[in-house]
């Protein structure tokens, strides 16, 4: 598989500067006055003025509770909310009624795992002897809910192992995806290794045995052009805060027919039809999965975020990040004592690069970089198993986005070069 973005023109340096002007926070200094270089977008991205403005405008002109009102504000708010649903759904290539607003991507995976653990899911319900297949590089969000589903239903959790290069080891894939496999759940891109997974191949094999496919698209939707319908997955999740949107909103996108077959997980207002003291009937998807007041303001802001991304062009963002990945890999290759954890080449890889510094703990690495203004993440990045696979407890991770400059990557590499000396390790 080669990625669709290879053809597009990367953002030019001047365009990146124009983009940066939209992000006030990128211009601040930290610590003793060092200019911030924000290389932590893999954890959470920053919001441009356009997104903040959209939320402000909505709050000061049209906000009200949605769906249940006869008054003007309620109507305007409902329109804005449902327009957002259409726009975000279009952004990832699914119909609006297949897009559910939740708290974050984690909740989306929990909802799926819980619904599939419920006997009311009918033919989709997990049974003893069934198999759930994940991979060894998953974020805890795409691991622990499936552990719980397996424990609850008697299904067995299995996983695709990794090569030393941080790619999927597909040697035994035809044994791993077999007639017992009911769910194949995997990240589109790893939040640690940066690896982009072979979605088409996994989907084809899952389809061949009638298994559902669940894509953790948290690290792909913000960075690559993603069309979930074309990818052919049955369900996918992603989070607003990683794609220029606010916290407090995540999306579960799924084939409407699948949603219609699944029981609700959270219950309450707005998702019911007829309620008596003894019983309740439930509405159709997406409402059935949206109990209580939804993240209205956050949906409106996320709408502005996808408009921003589309305005720049996801293909061009992907092409630019491909450049950045190359720049980071090249830079790190030149720093003594640094070992990249994950693919050493930029092919099928995002601009998220985790690494170990010989003799220096990631916390200390991060601290020295922070003093130079460089914000990276340290720890296990909610993916302990993949760290264990590569023989470490934790790592340092730099992750770029559309607003990252070459100069920032260079400053990062340069500062990293001072780390071992600071701790007397060279």
């Amino acid at each position, binding site marked *: 598989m080669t990625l669709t973005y290879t053809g597009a023109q990367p953002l030019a340096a001047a365009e990146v500067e124009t983009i940066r002007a939209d992000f006030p926070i990128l211009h601040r200094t930290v610590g003793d006055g060092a200019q911030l270089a924000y290389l932590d977008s893999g954890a959470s991205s920053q919001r441009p003025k356009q997104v903040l403005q959209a939320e402000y405008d909505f709050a000061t002109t049209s906000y009200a509770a949605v*769906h*249940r*009102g*006869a008054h003007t504000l*309620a*109507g305007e708010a*409902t*329109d804005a909310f449902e327009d957002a649903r259409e726009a975000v759904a279009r952004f990832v290539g699914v119909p609006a009624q297949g897009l559910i607003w939740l708290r974050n991507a984690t909740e989306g995976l929990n909802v799926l795992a819980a619904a599939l653990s419920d006997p009311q899911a009918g033919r989709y319900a997990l049974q003893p002897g069934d198999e759930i297949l994940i991979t060894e590089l998953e974020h805890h969000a795409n691991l622990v809910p499936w552990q719980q589903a397996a424990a609850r239903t008697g299904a067995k959790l299995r996983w695709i192992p990794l090569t030393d290069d941080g790619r999927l080891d597909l040697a035994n894939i035809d044994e791993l995806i077999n007639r017992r496999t009911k769910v194949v759940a995997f990240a589109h891109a790893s939040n640690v290794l940066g690896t982009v997974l072979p979605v088409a191949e996994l989907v084809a094999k899952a389809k061949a045995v009638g298994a559902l496919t669940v894509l953790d698209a948290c690290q792909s939707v913000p960075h690559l052009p993603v069309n979930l319908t074309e990818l052919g997955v049955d369900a996918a999740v992603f989070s607003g805060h990683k794609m220029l949107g606010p916290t407090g909103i995540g999306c579960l996108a799924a084939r409407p027919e699948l949603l219609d077959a699944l029981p609700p997980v959270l219950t309450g207002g707005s998702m*019911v*039809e*007829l309620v008596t003291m003894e019983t309740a009937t439930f*509405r159709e998807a997406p409402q059935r999965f949206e109990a209580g007041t939804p993240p209205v303001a956050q949906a409106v802001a996320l709408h502005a975020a996808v408009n921003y991304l589309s305005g720049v062009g996801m293909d061009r963002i992907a092409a630019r990040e491909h450049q950045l990945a190359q720049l980071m890999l090249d830079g790190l290759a030149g720093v003594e004592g640094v070992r990249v954890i994950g693919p050493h080449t930029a092919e099928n890889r995002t601009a998220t690069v985790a690494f170990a510094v010989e003799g220096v703990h990631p916390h200390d690495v991060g601290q020295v970089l922070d003093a130079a203004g460089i914000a990276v993440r340290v720890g296990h990045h909610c993916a302990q198993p993949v760290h264990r696979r590569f023989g470490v407890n934790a790592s340092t991770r730099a992750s770029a986005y559309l607003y990252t400059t070459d100069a920032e990557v260079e400053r990062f590499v340069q500062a990293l070069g001072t780390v071992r000396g600071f701790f007397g390790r060279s």
Partner: protein
Amino acid sequence: MSSLEALYQQVILDHSKEKHGRTDLADDEMFDPASTARSRQYNPLCGDEVTLQVTLGEQDVREIAWTGEGCSISQAATSVLHDLVVGKPVEEARSILADYRTMLRSRGAGTPDEEVLGDAVAFAGVSRHANRVKCAILGWTAFEDALLRIEAARPTAKEA
């Protein structure tokens, strides 16, 4: 004309009081599924409902009877539906239905064809109020659903 008067045209106010075709529908009534069907539609947002019964002749809509709770818009819309389609060929009723839907979804943009829609053009103003579109369509959806049921119960050309 205020926007309130644009929404509540006199036709609507009148029909919401008169309610043509509104009657009691006995729960246990027996009928031939190949010519008569009922549909109950429910609006979970407000609890409104309409139960509507259609009887078709060979080619035409012979009878419509309905009951239910609802706002003036939904009651009037069902009453107007009754007047518009009873006696019309089924095919014509279907095309009225299609036009009506298009009008309601126009968000105030389209110019409805009074030739086709008759009194139902009074509901054009509803299209500006997204939250009332459901009210105006409730009885019409019941009509459409009942037509489908009859169709399903009739021997098809192929089978025949």
